[in-house]
């Protein structure tokens, strides 16, 4: 009894008691903490190379300091400006085309009648999410090569076109193909979150609406969509944070010299300048710029979401 009272009064446990009671828990935590310390945090001091002209032979201690020189250099670098423009343009397009697709698909899946049909098709639609970009890229080439690709072969045999469409070898065609493949890869998996949110909507709302004579589209518009609004906003925030990011695996698998203008995005720039051409400081500065803008974007869109009365992310 006395003990209970004491516990109630003392809301804050002392470290001594906490360690005595939970030392095993802290012991367990040592493993993941050691992992992030060694493989993540230990790399942070290396970021000082953005203020240096880093030379791997001389190391951090031997390389000269250049202050903001690296940043001045990258903003004068035409390759960087180009990569930045392409990255932002392609990511915004990805967002514009790719973001609504899972929502639309989830609405359709939700309306499907036959449970078996729904289950099988969902399984099939999730599949691309589990394939690596190497597989998707190689299959895409099999589909879209100018003369021997399945799509061009089919169209030419039909006589619809004379010459193959350069889906992956002319930059504007490439842009469309690249974006659509991205949408295709993510659309099925993206529905899961929305379908889960739809399950959470109170079924009585639908019944009441049906009694009031609301048809399918009205129910979709006035009940389902408002019901998943919170989820949509949360995911939009997460995706806005990625507007600066780019995926090297996806970009490099679709690389070829004809489309370099569009394909040379930030991830490619960092890999190319850094690990391939040895301009370590420049690549790191771009990488840092990219992640800082990314973090800022997430924080900003989270604030905006909260201002609009949504739950936000953080």
């Amino acid at each position, binding site marked *: 009894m006395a003990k209970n009272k004491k516990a109630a009064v003392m809301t804050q*446990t002392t*470290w001594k008691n*906490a360690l005595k009671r*939970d030392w*095993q*828990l*802290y012991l*367990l*935590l040592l*493993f*993941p*903490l050691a*992992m*992030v310390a060694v493989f*993540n945090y*230990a*790399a*942070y*001091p*290396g*970021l000082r190379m953005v203020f240096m002209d*880093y030379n791997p032979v001389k190391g951090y201690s031997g390389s000269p300091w250049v202050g903001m020189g690296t940043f001045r250099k990258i903003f004068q670098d035409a390759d960087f400006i180009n990569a930045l423009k392409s990255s932002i343009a392609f990511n915004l397009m990805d967002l514009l085309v790719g973001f609504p697709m899972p929502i639309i698909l989830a609405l359709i899946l939700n309306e*499907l*009648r036959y449970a078996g049909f729904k289950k099988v*098709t969902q*399984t*099939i*639609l*999730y599949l691309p999410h589990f*394939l*690596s*970009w190497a*597989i998707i890229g*190689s*299959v895409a*080439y*099999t589909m879209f090569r100018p003369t*021997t690709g*399945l799509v061009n*072969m*089919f169209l030419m045999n039909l006589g619809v076109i004379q010459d193959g469409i350069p889906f992956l070898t002319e930059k504007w065609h490439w842009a469309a193909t690249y974006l659509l493949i991205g949408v*295709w890869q993510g659309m*099925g998996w993206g529905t*899961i*979150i929305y379908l*889960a949110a739809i399950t959470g909507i109170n079924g009585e709302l639908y019944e009441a609406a049906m009694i009031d004579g609301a048809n399918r589209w009205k129910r979709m518009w006035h009940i389902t969509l408002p019901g998943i609004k919170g*989820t949509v906003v*949360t995911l939009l925030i997460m995706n806005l944070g990625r507007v600066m990011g780019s995926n*090297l*695996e996806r970009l*490099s*698998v679709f690389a*070829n*010299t004809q489309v370099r203008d569009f394909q040379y995005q930030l991830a490619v720039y960092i890999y190319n300048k*850094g690990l391939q051409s040895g301009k370590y400081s420049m*690549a*790191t500065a771009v990488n*840092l710029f990219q*992640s800082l803008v990314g*973090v800022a974007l997430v924080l900003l869109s989270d604030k905006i979401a909260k201002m609009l009365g949504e739950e936000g992310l953080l």
Partner: protein
Amino acid sequence: MAKKKEQVVKNADTGSGGSRAINKFRISDAVMMLIIILLCATCILPFIHVAVKSVSGNSYVLAKQIYFLPKGINFDAYASIFRDGSLVYAMVYSVVVTLIFTVLGMLACTCAAYPLSKKRLKGKTGITFLLMLPMYFTAGIIPTFVLFYDLKLYDTMWVLIWPLIYSPYNMLIMKTFFQSNVPDSLEESAFLDGASNIQILCKIVLPLSKPILATLSLFYAVGRWNAYADNMYYIKTDRLKMAQYKLFQMVSSASESQSVTLSEAAAVTSTPEVLQAAFIMFVTLPIICIYPFLQKYFVKGAMVGAVKG
């Protein structure tokens, strides 16, 4: 009396069935099914085409006659892949790396998620911050590269394993599951019986969390199996590269010249296209084979993750 009740229930059943019948199949239903079927076709047909191509005769492929039915079936392309051996080696190597990675990953994930799922843990906020920050902010490729070089991890198998075994995202999913699916009262009573924290974890929490353990193991395994950017950054030796990276190398060299790089010893008799198709199938099949069985676990995990993403 009981019979009458049954009758009523039955009536109610047919009643609801009746209302479903009134709500009849409309054109919009057909349109929606058609859209879904078309989208599914885009997910399946390309792979059928590649599979068919990989077992078709060279002359038919060159004559562009292969769509979705094989002609002149033979397995020469697969035979030359096996003769060459390097891809088979890469597959075995990838399986080994993936297995080690998954085991260590689950260990690291559990070690982080279980303590952090306890509300009473002192210093929880600070530790959570330390463990989550790497998800939002990393030092970037070059500082990491220099670090791994200094740690003597560069160009070893372990660089594909250690750096990624702790995943903040998976930890979050596991923590959420522990908090919402393992009743506190069960743990408390075990605690009163004198069980230690680790005993509670091993005897109560983990056995109750089998679904999420399965799901996260799969996330880890598929993640490792499919990723190859780190092969590009940190691996130089050919024998230490994973199968997906080999496929990537083949694609990027073939995208312009359409040639496949297999050693001379393989005595390639297939055309590059057939060989490439076989190559793709070889790397894709493991995923496609296990996928239908594992899919439900993935969905479950994704939903838990969605609740508190």
